[in-house]
């Protein structure tokens, strides 16, 4: 190397030179005071703009490597004799024509079964990763809730009457207001819906307002995705939206409940529990509801009904089609 250029000096400071080049720069610096001066000036600015600090890496989501390996393994199995890297042993077997594709597929199925049997930790890890991923989405929706509250003075909530009278209306309210731009946030990564989003959409509020008949029913049943939303509380015959009081165990959002389960537990996580986001921003995975941790059931009001709360601290989370004022209440007296 002739006399080092400024590019070389930068490379020296950034650790971008090969070892030999690095040594040559050091030798030249040792005998050239002008070069040292130039390096000092350069170093000051590299330091000033932050390039001398170790960069802060982004942490990968839990289970990324595992999911990647699973994706590749599936591809490997599916394309065993097409474009996957064919193991040498398999290739030699194929050339001898002693094994058919069916043999290999059977072998792959046996392998998958064996992995399932002998590596339960793998499934457990996937389960944990899905829970974490679901929590991440709830957390982002919680932030959107907070932004909505700051703008409107209350959380987004369904109305008592009209087309906006189901809990899932929160989804179009947040997307129309641009507090949520990615509709996938309303989908739990481990739910059935997540495996096929074709045909699922969040309507705009205008589309919802104009919908009638089966279209309206479809919107109300599906627009909220996989989660359940706070339905507010009834007071003096009126529905009040919840307001932010930073309560530790006041539920705001959760995995959507299922009527197929006796306690209305969600099916998003194979019936093993549900993520619940509370008003203070923390999320817990509750293996059962009602939970001993909670003063009330997040999926029913204090009267045990799927409806709005009966006081300001009675939190009830409704899935997309749940109504704060159920149809059977309307026929009852005095409500």
């Amino acid at each position, binding site marked *: 190397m002739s006399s080092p250029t400024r590019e070389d000096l*930068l490379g020296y400071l950034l650790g971008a030179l090969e070892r030999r080049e690095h040594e040559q720069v050091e030798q030249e610096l040792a005998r050239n005071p002008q070069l040292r001066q130039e390096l000092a000036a350069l170093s000051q600015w590299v330091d000033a703009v932050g390039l001398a600090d170790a960069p802060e890496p982004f942490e990968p989501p839990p289970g990324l490597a595992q999911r990647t390996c699973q994706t590749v393994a599936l591809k490997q199995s599916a394309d065993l004799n097409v474009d996957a890297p064919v193991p040498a042993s398999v290739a030699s077997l194929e050339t001898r024509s002693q094994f058919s594709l069916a043999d290999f597929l059977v072998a792959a199925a046996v392998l998958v079964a064996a992995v399932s049997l002998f590596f339960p930790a793998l499934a457990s890890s996937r389960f944990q990763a899905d829970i974490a991923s679901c929590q991440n989405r709830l957390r982002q929706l919680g932030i959107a809730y907070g932004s909505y509250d700051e703008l409107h003075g209350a959380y987004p909530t369904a109305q008592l009457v009209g087309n906006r009278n189901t809990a899932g209306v929160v989804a179009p309210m947040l997307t129309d207001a641009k507090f949520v731009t990615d509709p996938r946030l309303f989908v739990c990564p481990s739910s059935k819906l997540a495996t096929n989003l074709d045909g699922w959409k969040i309507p705009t509020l205008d589309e919802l307002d104009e919908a009638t008949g089966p279209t309206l029913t479809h919107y109300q049943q599906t627009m909220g995705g996989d989660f359940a939303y706070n339905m507010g509380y009834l007071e003096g015959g009126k529905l009040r939206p919840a307001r932010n009081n930073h309560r530790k165990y006041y539920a705001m959002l959760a995995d959507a409940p299922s009527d197929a389960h006796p306690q209305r537990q969600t099916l998003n996580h194979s019936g093993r529990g549900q993520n619940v986001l509370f008003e203070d921003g923390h999320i817990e995975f509750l293996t059962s509801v009602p939970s001993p941790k909670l003063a009330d059931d997040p999926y029913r009001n204090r009267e045990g009904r799927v409806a709005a709360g009966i006081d300001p601290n009675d939190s009830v989370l409704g899935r997309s089609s749940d109504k704060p004022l159920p149809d059977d209440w309307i026929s009852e007296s005095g409500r």
Partner: protein
Amino acid sequence: MKATLADTRASVSHSADETSTDEQLLLTYRDSGDREVFAELVHRYERELYSYLRRYLGDAEMAEDAFQAAFLQVHLKCQQFEAGRAFRPWLYTIAINQAIDAQRRSRRHRMVSLDRSSGAGGEEVGKLLDVLVSTEPNPTLQLGKDERREWLQNTMDRLPEALRDVLQLVYFQDMKYREAAEVLNIPVGTVKSRVHAAVLKLTEAWKQAYPETP
């Protein structure tokens, strides 16, 4: 000088194959199809490559998709990997292509460039020393480390793409000039001049943002 990413990579290696080089692992996988070997490679690059893609794409979900797509391509293309070649630049080349595809799909657009006069920007090598000459006292800052890090990231996001790409590889990914050149398929001299131009732009941006500093 900054800490090396290689240290980080070494610390996350944990399988029985951790003594093998990346190249040895890939060639072993190519010949045997051994999934454990492949998993070791994925684990080695999980943090580093995800971090790169997350920074490149600015979106966690897209970064995860691109990460998985990149390793799927590694699996599909490992037959094309030639012995004697370095794995890391090869992987990054694949990952960048996947990231570009992801960007196209999402129709996202990068922020307005700092350099309005030059789209590529790479060949415009200013006189960094001229900027430095006018500076007398120590520009070491009033900003804390976190603030400075945030400023750097935000400013880098506004650099011309050609400059940002080389700086991301050399600074954030701790690559040698030679490795970055291989990833981007450009001459080493071009990488050097782009890094120089990028630092010049950062310095200019710094002086604009903090004129009270020298």
